[in-house]
């Protein structure tokens, strides 16, 4: 029923890629005999031309992805080809330049290309791994359901805390208010918990994983005197336990979702830089060699 990027069409593009690599090596080895390998031989030009075509075609994905009216092929097929053929580029480009590197525009283009490819490879890893993690993290609860459960937990907490003394009530309210999800970019990315709470006597404290409130409640339970109070405190304990869990899942979800997209922020601009460097490289070769 379902087929992923790598498995598309019986891995047809993997075979294409293998073919490209073998051919490139074959072409490369034909030059050793006559003159030393370099980008300047006809083989070098050939490999270079192939590389440029590949890069242009790989960049075209940005347009193809948004050509929604196009009737040819599925985007999955395009991405599959993009990935497999993209991975042949390090080989083709390296053979093209015949391992000659330096501090010049040519090597800059090469480096940018490698950067695009590395970011792409990371992106592929993310695409393959993170969806499963998201599923596991969701535990069959849609985000709306999760938010609804959080809401009802908060309500339960307020109700229960209303029956307790002012200290507990204040602590609970502050913990609810100062629970955070998201925050700064880094906080989101790393799913950091910046929650805080205001406890009696101790003032503003760090409440990551709702630990501080939970500890506070735990300490209070043994020395309750009023009837029913212990029961309320234990209800609160359960609520905060569950809340910590839900908030953690929510943060993890946001972080995973962010990371699923973030790599493209490198992949795409680097592509533009690469295209610019590539033009410079080609112009330099033809006019100043």
């Amino acid at each position, binding site marked *: *029923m*379902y*087929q*992923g*990027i790598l498995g*598309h069409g019986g891995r047809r593009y993997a075979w294409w890629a293998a073919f490209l690599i073998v051919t490139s090596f074959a072409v490369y080895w034909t030059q050793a005999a006559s003159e030393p390998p370099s980008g300047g031989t006809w083989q070098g030009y050939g490999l270079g031309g192939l590389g440029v075509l590949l890069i242009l075609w790989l960049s075209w994905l940005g*347009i193809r*992805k*948004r*050509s*929604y*009216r*196009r*009737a*040819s*092929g*599925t*985007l*999955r097929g*395009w*991405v599959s080809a993009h990935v497999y053929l993209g991975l042949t580029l390090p080989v083709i480009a390296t053979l093209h330049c015949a391992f000659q590197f330096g501090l010049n525009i040519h090597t800059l283009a090469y480096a940018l290309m490698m950067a695009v490819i590395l970011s792409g490879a990371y992106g592929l890893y*993310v*695409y393959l791994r*993170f*969806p*499963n993690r*998201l*599923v596991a993290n*969701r535990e*069959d*609860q*849609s*985000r*709306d359901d999760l938010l*609804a459960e959080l*809401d*009802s937990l908060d*309500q339960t907490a*307020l109700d229960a805390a209303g029956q307790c003394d002012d200290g507990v009530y204040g602590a609970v309210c502050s913990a609810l208010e100062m629970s955070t999800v998201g925050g700064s970019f880094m906080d989101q990315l790393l799913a950091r918990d910046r929650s805080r709470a205001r406890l009696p006597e101790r003032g503003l404290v760090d409440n990551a994983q709702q630990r501080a409130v939970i500890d506070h409640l735990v300490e209070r339970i043994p020395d309750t005197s009023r009837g029913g109070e212990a029961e309320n405190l234990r209800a609160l304990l359960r609520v905060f336990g569950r809340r910590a869990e839900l908030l953690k899942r929510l943060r993890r979800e946001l972080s995973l*979702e962010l990371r*699923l*997209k973030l790599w493209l922020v490198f992949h795409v601009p680097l592509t533009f830089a690469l295209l610019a460097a590539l033009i410079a490289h080609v112009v330099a070769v033809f006019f100043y060699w």
Partner: protein
Amino acid sequence: MADFHIAVLGAGPAGLSAAARAAEYDRENAASQPTHVLLEGTAAHANTIQRYQKGKHVMDEPGYLDLRSPMDFEAGTREVILDDWAQGLKAIGVNMRTGATVNRIEGTRGNFTIHLAGGETVTAEHVILSIGTQGNPRRLGVAGDDSAFVQYQLDDPDEYADEDILVVGAGDAAIENALGLTRQNRVTIVNRKNEFSRAKQGNLDGILAAINDPATPLTCRYQSQVKALQLPTAAGQAGSVILDTPDGEETLPCHRIIARLGSIPPRGFLEDCGIALPNASAEALPELDGQYQCNVAGLHVIGALAGYPLIKQAMNQGQDVVDFIHGKAVKPVEHPLLQVKFGLLPYEADVDEVLALYQQRVPMFARMNALAFRELILESDILYAVDGRAAYTGLEKQARTLRAQRLDDIEHSRRNEDRKRHETGMKPKQWRDIEEPALTGILRAGEAVYRHGEYSTTFYTIVEGEVTLKSPGGPETRLQPGQFFGEMSLLSGRPRLGDAVVAPDTILIATPRRTMLKLMAANGEVATGIETVFLQRTLQQCFAPSLSYTALRDIARRVETRHFNRGEVIYEQGDSGDCLYLIRSGTVALTYRENGRSIAVGHPQSGELFGQLALMGDAVRRETARAAVRVEVIAIKRAEFLELLKRSPDSVPALQADTRDQLLHASRMESVPEASDVISFLLGRGLGEATDALVIDENLCVGCDNCEIACAETHNGISRLNRKAGARFAHINLPIACRHCEQPHCMKECPPNAIHRKPSGEVFIDDSCIGCGNCETNCPYDVIRMEYQAPPKPGLLQWLLTGRGHGPGEDAKAQPSKKAKAAGKKAVKCDACKDRKAGPACVQACPTGAAVRLSPADFADLVEDL
């Protein structure tokens, strides 16, 4: 002597037009006193239209029909139309009484007594009943429920501010009102039950969130009812309400009460007036004769209540019925439409003769009233199959001439009307584009009207010639004039079984599903006729493919059809069984319980059997059968089953093989409980009735939303799928998007009949949508949105290069243009990209292959994947 010659009840479009016509007669006869009266229950004319949302664009479908009424009507905003009618009422001199709710009608022609609420009576010789089908709002049922303190309608929630308001009801209308009011008021919603089970998902989520959110000024009283009212002492003051709650009585002060308790269908009213209804359904409509008269002589029923759900139709009937009462034999407006419909047939007869001939020729239609038959033909296509190229091209040529003539006629009559209006100083009419005339359809002999596997639900009746049904693996059945076919798909919603091939010189009436269903609802005889043949052919298909279906008539009489609503149990594991079931429509979920765990072991669909083991050796039910959606099953007992097998012994091996397959599938499902859970989830979400649903594998989905973007980009800027809001289970996400149901609920009450299904199965809405929102309400899966047309966006390159405007995908903040606003909101939903060669854009645009479309038949493959 009666007070009036004609009393018209209900001032909707139908009633207005009738009363106006009656007023014209009065004027012609120079009557000193009006001999007609128009009684309207509410405070103003056309309550149904008054209740449309503000500024709604009212359409004048169907385009092929001309208006024939003293009152004006053309497409425009609700306000303009209501205004025109108000002026028309005055100008023509209609004798209207508002605030006159009719409770009951008594008597017959020449001698009717009309009882009004409040005890007054009015007498009349003829009564025209045009109260529509909206019904009257259900009242609170306590003293004071008719005072201004209680409102049964809320037009604009922002009209009130800083009030305490009680909303009574638990349906969508109550929830929407309550949520709207919380913006500026404090609201208490009173629910008779302990949950909001009737509401749509979106409203349900909304109300629960609002109840739980301490910041929203909304509270809920569950299991509570209004017991009494204490009316405010002066306008603007607060009154109070006494509620019956689980904790005893509670008194709540409030400024007003909004009661949204649904409406009482007019059925009860009709029965009280002695009007016979053909069957027990709440939506049953009275049977009428050629002059819209029901079984009570002199009592005429027109408009929506007569089964004509559009304004123009209602108005035309209004004029016609008064003409009838005055003894004028008018040719209905549709006369020329029928003329072209019959135009290519090889007869020298006029329309009425052809109609009479056809009605006589089909036993099932013979006893229908002429009016209903005429309507049936009007809504149907007439197909004519000819042999040979020459004959076909000859007809094609004739068709072109006929078409040109008809268009000419229309132009001509429009010019005449324009001139008349100009001379009498009326404002000129905005003519709409002339619609293609519906001519006789021509076929080549030997052609199939439908093919095996096609989705089409048209019902065919043969009036001349012959049709051969060729089912795969079965014998050929030849059908003669008077017989019909196509009822299987009509009733089950499943694709066609086999081809239907026409012989030379065959003439068919091809009736669309909606017309047929309406007819079956209104006419018991037609319903039984179709049902019986359906049963015979289904039994033949399943048990005796080598027999003729007519040979099964006696058995068909002895089997029983049963209905089960979604979730109802058909039989329970451990029961002893005495019959097997053949599914007529819908999907059944079979589950097996073991160690407290329930495992889905099968989901047979229409045309398939279940529970047959009870008659094949194991008398105890080994699983529970439950309706996954609303299902209809045919229960076959042992005696009939054995007889079927005896008559057709060669079908036994196939039956045994099927049963083996089912058992094998069941045992495989038991060994993969995860798969069974997924299938239970999908069935639980109504996928049993889907034919083409978008199902996303979350293990592959990267959340890029390219599917939604692609949808918007290929559908005028509005996405018809919502991925994020989809229901999730394990790694399956069921986005909110049309599933192209077997029997689309959305089609049920679409006034202009704008929802269709392609032979390949896609359910889609065409441009004639009038924006009434019925389909949005009727779709149980919440997939239809009412939207303005989205403004155009910059092209991809322009956006890429300049970064201006909204990129690909739906622009949630876009403001509709003036023109789009004037045209009004229309229903939009997924059409499965019916016109795209590459198939659904969502699937094509998914970069990871996570988005796939499937039907219950694919569930087995889904299991393979797990």
